[in-house]
C-alpha cells in the first residue's frame, strides 16, 4: 500500500514538468495552429538558463527566482522567434510553419552548444528540499511534494488567465474561431506574440523546474518533444485541462509501467495514445477540428497538368545527364545521387498522400524503414536472392500501410498525423526491442545487392531506373483517375461521397500505395547501404521527409523531389562545417521566409512575374 502511494506520488511529480511544457504547446497550437516542433528547444533553454541563474543567485529566493526568471527569459526568446521567423509566414499554407520551427531547433542546438559547452550539467538541489519524508514507510522526496503542490497552482493560474482576463477571452475566442477574432478588430499579430510568450515561458519554466530532478543536456530537446506531443494529443489539442489530465495519466502509467513491465518504457505512451485516439478521435477533451487543417489554407491550389513538351524535354535532359554521369562524374557523385534519388522517392511518396490527399502523415518512415527491414530480414533469415528480397520491400511496406491505414484514415488533420506517429513509434520499438530477430539497434548487416549490381555504377543505374521510375509513376498516378479521386476527397469530401466516391476507401488505397512506394525507396536504400538500423524508422526520418515536402512546395507536384534534392545536397555540403546545424537551420528558415510557397511554388510565381512562365501553366 505504501509503495503504491509512493509510486502514485512519483508519477504526479513527474507530471509537473510535462504539464508545464505540454500546456505551453497546447496553448500555442490552439491559438496559432502552429505545430511547434521547437517547443522542446525552449524547454532545454529553460533548463540551461535556470541552471546559470541558480549558480549566480543564492538561497531560497535565488532558486525560485531563477526558475521564474528562466521562464520569462525563454518567453522573450519565444517572442523573438515568433516575430523574426513565424510572423512573416503566417499566410503560408498551414503546417508550413513546422518547417521553420525545425530550422529553429537546429539553430538553438548549436547556439546552446556554443554557449554552455558539450558536457552534461547536473542541476542543483532545491534549498531546503533536499531530503525525504516517509509516507507509510516509503521515502518520498520533498521536492516531489513541492512539484505536486505547484502544478495545481499553475493550472489554476492558467485557468484564471484564460477565463478571467481579456487576453484569456481573446485566446478562447481565437481557439474557436480565428477569423472572427480578426474580424472583430483584434490585432492578431500581438495576440499571437502574446500567446507565444506565454507558451514558451511555460516550456522554460518546465525546463527550469525539473533541474533538481535531473539537469541540462543537449539531447533534452528531442527527448521530451515526443512525450509532449503525446500529452497534448491525448488531452485534446488546445485543451489545458486535457493536457493536465493527460500529463498525469501518462506519468502515472509510466511509473507503474516501470515497476511491472520494465521493458515497456519505450512504447507505453504511444500505445496509450493509439488507444485513446481510436476510441476518442479528438483526444480526451478535444473538440472536432474545424475544416481547413490539411495544409490547404491559403491560396487555392491550381489545376494540375502533365508536363508539356518543354517540361518533358527538360526532364528528359536531366535523366540523360544523370544516366551518363558514370562517363564524366566521380564515383562519389554516383553514391551521393543514389542517396538523393532514394530520398526523393521517399519524399515524393509522402507528398502523394500529403498534397493530393490532404493526409499529413508524421510517421511515413515506418514504411521506408519497414520495407527496408522486410528485405533485410528475407536476406538474413531465408537467404532470399536479392532480386526477390528487393521486391518484398514495397510489398511488405504496402501490407503494413494497409494495416496501419485501417486505423488511421478514420481520423483527420492533426489527429491523423499523431496516430501515424504513434504507429510508427510502435513499429520502431518493435524492431528496436525484438533483438533476437531484428538485431535491435545493432541492426541487420551485410545486406548487399546481387553480384550483377554490386558495382557502384551498376547500382547507381539501377537506382536511377527504379527510383526515377517510381517518382514518374507517382506523378503519373496523380494525373490518373485515382489521383483525381484522391484530390476530390481532399477538396470536398461531401461532394465526393455524393458523387459515388468512397472517401475512406480512396484514402486507404492512397495510403497503402504511398506506403508501398516508400517501401520501394526503403528497398533501394538497404541494398545501397548494406545494412539497416532502427534509425530509418525514427520520427526524425519521417520529419526529414515532411520538411522537404514543405520546403519544396506542398501545392506543387515536383515539390518533394526538388526539396529533397535541395535538402540532401545542402546537408551533404554543410556537414563539413563545424557549426553546420546552425547554418542548415538558418538556410531552412531563410528558404521558408523567402519562399513561403516552397521552392517550386515560389519559383513558379517569380517566373510568372518575370514573364518566363505562362500564368497558370508551367512545369509543376
Amino acid at each position, binding site marked *: 500500500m505504501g509503495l503504491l502511494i509512493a509510486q502514485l506520488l512519483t508519477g504526479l511529480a513527474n507530471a509537473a514538468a510535462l504539464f508545464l511544457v505540454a500546456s505551453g504547446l497546447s496553448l500555442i497550437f490552439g491559438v496559432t495552429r502552429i505545430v511547434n516542433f521547437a517547443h522542446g528547444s525552449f524547454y532545454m533553454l529553460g533548463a540551461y538558463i535556470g541552471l546559470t541563474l541558480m549558480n549566480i543567485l543564492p538561497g531560497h529566493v535565488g532558486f525560485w527566482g531563477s526558475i521564474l526568471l528562466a521562464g520569462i527569459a525563454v518567453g522573450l526568446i519565444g517572442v523573438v522567434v515568433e516575430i523574426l521567423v513565424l510572423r512573416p509566414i503566417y499566410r503560408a499554407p498551414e503546417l508550413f510553419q513546422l518547417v521553420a520551427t525545425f530550422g529553429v531547433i537546429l539553430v538553438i542546438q548549436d547556439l546552446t552548444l556554443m554557449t554552455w559547452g558539450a558536457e552534461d550539467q547536473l542541476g542543483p538541489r532545491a534549498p531546503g528540499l533536499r531530503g525525504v519524508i516517509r509516507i507509510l514507510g516509503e521515502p518520498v522526496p520533498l521536492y516531489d511534494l513541492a512539484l505536486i503542490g505547484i502544478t495545481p497552482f499553475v493550472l489554476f493560474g492558467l485557468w484564471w488567465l484564460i477565463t478571467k482576463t481579456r487576453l484569456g477571452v481573446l485566446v478562447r475566442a481565437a481557439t474557436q474561431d480565428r477569423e472572427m477574432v480578426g474580424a472583430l478588430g483584434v490585432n492578431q499579430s500581438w495576440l499571437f506574440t502574446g500567446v507565444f510568450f506565454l507558451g514558451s515561458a511555460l516550456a522554460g519554466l518546465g525546463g527550469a523546474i525539473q533541474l533538481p530532478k535531473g539537469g541540462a543536456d543537449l539531447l533534452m530537446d528531442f527527448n521530451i518533444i515526443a512525450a509532449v506531443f503525446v500529452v497534448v494529443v491525448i488531452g485534446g489539442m488546445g485543451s489545458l485541462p486535457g493536457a493536465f489530465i493527460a500529463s498525469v495519466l501518462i506519468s502515472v502509467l509510466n511509473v507503474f509501467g516501470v515497476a511491472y513491465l520494465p521493458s515497456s518504457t519505450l512504447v507505453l505512451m504511444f500505445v496509450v495514445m493509439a488507444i485513446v485516439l481510436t476510441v476518442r478521435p479528438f483526444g480526451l477533451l478535444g473538440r472536432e477540428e474545424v475544416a481547413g487543417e490539411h495544409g490547404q489554407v491559403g491560396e487555392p*491550389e491550381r*489545376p494540375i497538368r502533365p508536363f508539356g513538351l518543354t517540361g518533358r524535354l527538360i526532364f528528359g535532359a536531366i535523366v540523360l545527364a544523370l544516366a551518363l554521369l558514370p562517363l564524366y562524374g566521380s564515383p562519389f557523385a554516383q553514391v551521393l545521387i543514389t542517396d538523393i534519388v532514394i530520398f526523393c522517392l521517399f519524399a515524393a511518396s509522402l507528398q502523394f498522400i500529403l498534397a493530393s490527399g490532404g493526409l499529413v502523415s508524421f510517421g511515413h518512415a515506418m514504411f521506408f524503414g519497414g520495407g527496408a527491414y522486410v528485405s533485410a530480414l528475407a536476406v538474413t533469415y531465408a537467404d532470399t536472392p536479392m532480386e526477390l528480397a528487393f521486391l518484398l520491400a514495397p510489398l511488405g511496406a504496402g501490407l503494413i500501410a494497409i494495416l496501419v491505414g485501417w486505423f488511421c484514415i478514420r481520423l483527420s488533420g492533426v489527429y491523423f498525423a499523431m496516430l501515424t506517429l504513434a504507429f510508427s513509434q510502435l513499429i520502431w520499438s518493435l524492431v528496436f526491442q525484438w533483438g533476437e530477430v531484428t538485431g535491435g539497434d545493432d541492426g541487420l548487416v551485410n545486406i548487399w545487392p546481387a553480384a550483377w549490381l554490386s558495382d557502384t555504377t551498376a547500382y547507381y543505374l539501377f537506382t536511377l531506373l527504379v527510383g526515377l521510375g517510381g517518382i514518374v509513376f507517382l506523378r503519373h498516378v496523380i494525373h490518373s483517375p485515382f489521383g483525381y*479521386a484522391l484530390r476530390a476527397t481532399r*477538396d470536398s469530401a461531401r461532394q465526393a461521397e455524393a458523387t459515388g466516391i468512397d472517401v475512406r476507401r480512396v484514402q486507404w488505397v492512397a495510403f497503402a500505395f504511398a506506403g508501398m512506394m516508400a517501401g520501394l525507396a526503403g528497398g533501394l536504400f538497404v541494398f545501397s547501404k548494406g545494412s539497416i538500423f532502427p534509425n530509418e524508422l525514427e520520427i526524425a526520418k519521417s520529419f526529414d521527409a515532411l520538411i522537404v515536402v514543405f520546403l519544396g512546395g506542398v501545392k506543387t507536384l515536383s515539390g518533394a523531389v526538388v526539396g529533397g534534392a535541395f535538402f540532401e545536397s545542402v546537408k551533404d555540403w554543410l556537414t563539413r562545417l563545424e557549426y553546420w546545424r546552425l547554418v542548415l537551420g538558418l538556410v531552412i528558415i531563410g528558404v521558408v521566409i523567402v519562399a513561403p510557397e516552397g521552392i517550386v511554388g515560389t519559383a513558379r510565381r517569380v517566373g510568372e512575374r518575370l514573364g518566363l512562365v505562362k500564368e497558370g501553366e508551367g512545369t509543376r
Partner: protein
Amino acid sequence: MSVILKVEHLAKSFGGVKAVTDVSFEVRAGELKALIGPNGAGKSTCFNMLMGQLKPSSGRVSLDGQDITGHSPRDVWRRGVGRTFQITGTYQSMTVAENVQMALISHHRKIYSFLPRAHRMYREEALALLALVGMADQANRACAILAYGDLKRLELAIALAHEPRLLLMDEPTAGMAPRERISLMQLTADIVAERGISVLFTEHDMDVVFAHSHHIMVLNRGELIADGTAAQVRANARVQEVYLGGGTLFSPEDAHG
C-alpha cells in the same frame, strides 16, 4: 405517372429535439416538386435523410420501390439520384471540365484505375454537359476562380453527369441575383423536362417556386402541412396561417427575396 421516390413516416430527432416528424410524400416521374417552409422547418434535414447524409430516426425511403433508408450517399447516387448543395462543394483544385469529368469517371466506375490520364477521360461528354448549362466557354478555367452563379451551373452539370432519374436540389438559387435565379431555374426545368428527370428542390424564393414547380410541399416545424399544386397550396388554410397569419415564422425577405 409512376412513383420514383416514396417517403413514408420519416422522422429525425437530435437528442430529443424533433427536427422532422412523420413526413410522407411521393415524387413522380418527370415531376418538379418544391419543398418549402420557414427557416428551421426541417427542409435540409429531410434532404440529408433522403440522400443518406443523415440516418433517419424512423420511417422509410424507397426509390423505385426499393428501400434505400439509411443507405450511404454514394449508394443513393449510384441508384440514379443526383444532388446539389446549398453551399456548393465543387473541387477547387480542378478545372470546370475536370469537375464534371470526375463525376463521369465515378459513374463509369473508373476511380481505381491508375494508368489512364484523367483529364482526357470523358472529356466530350463533360463538354456537352457544360454546353447544356451554358458553361462551355469556361471549361478550362480553374474552378476556384468561378463566379458564384457559374458554380451553381457547374453543380447542375455535375449532378446530371450520371444521367439521374431524380435530382435533389437544396436551395439551388440561394445567394444569386433575382434574374439569375429565374434563368437558372428555367434552365433546370428545360433540361429535366427534356430528359424526363424528376426534381425535388427546396427554395426560399417564392417566385421561383411558384413559377417552376408542378407540386409544392410545405414543411413547418418538421411537419408536412400541405402537398399539392400551387393553387391548392395557396388556398391551404394552414399555409396561410404559417406564412401570413403568424408573420413571425416567415419574414418578408424570405418570401420575396
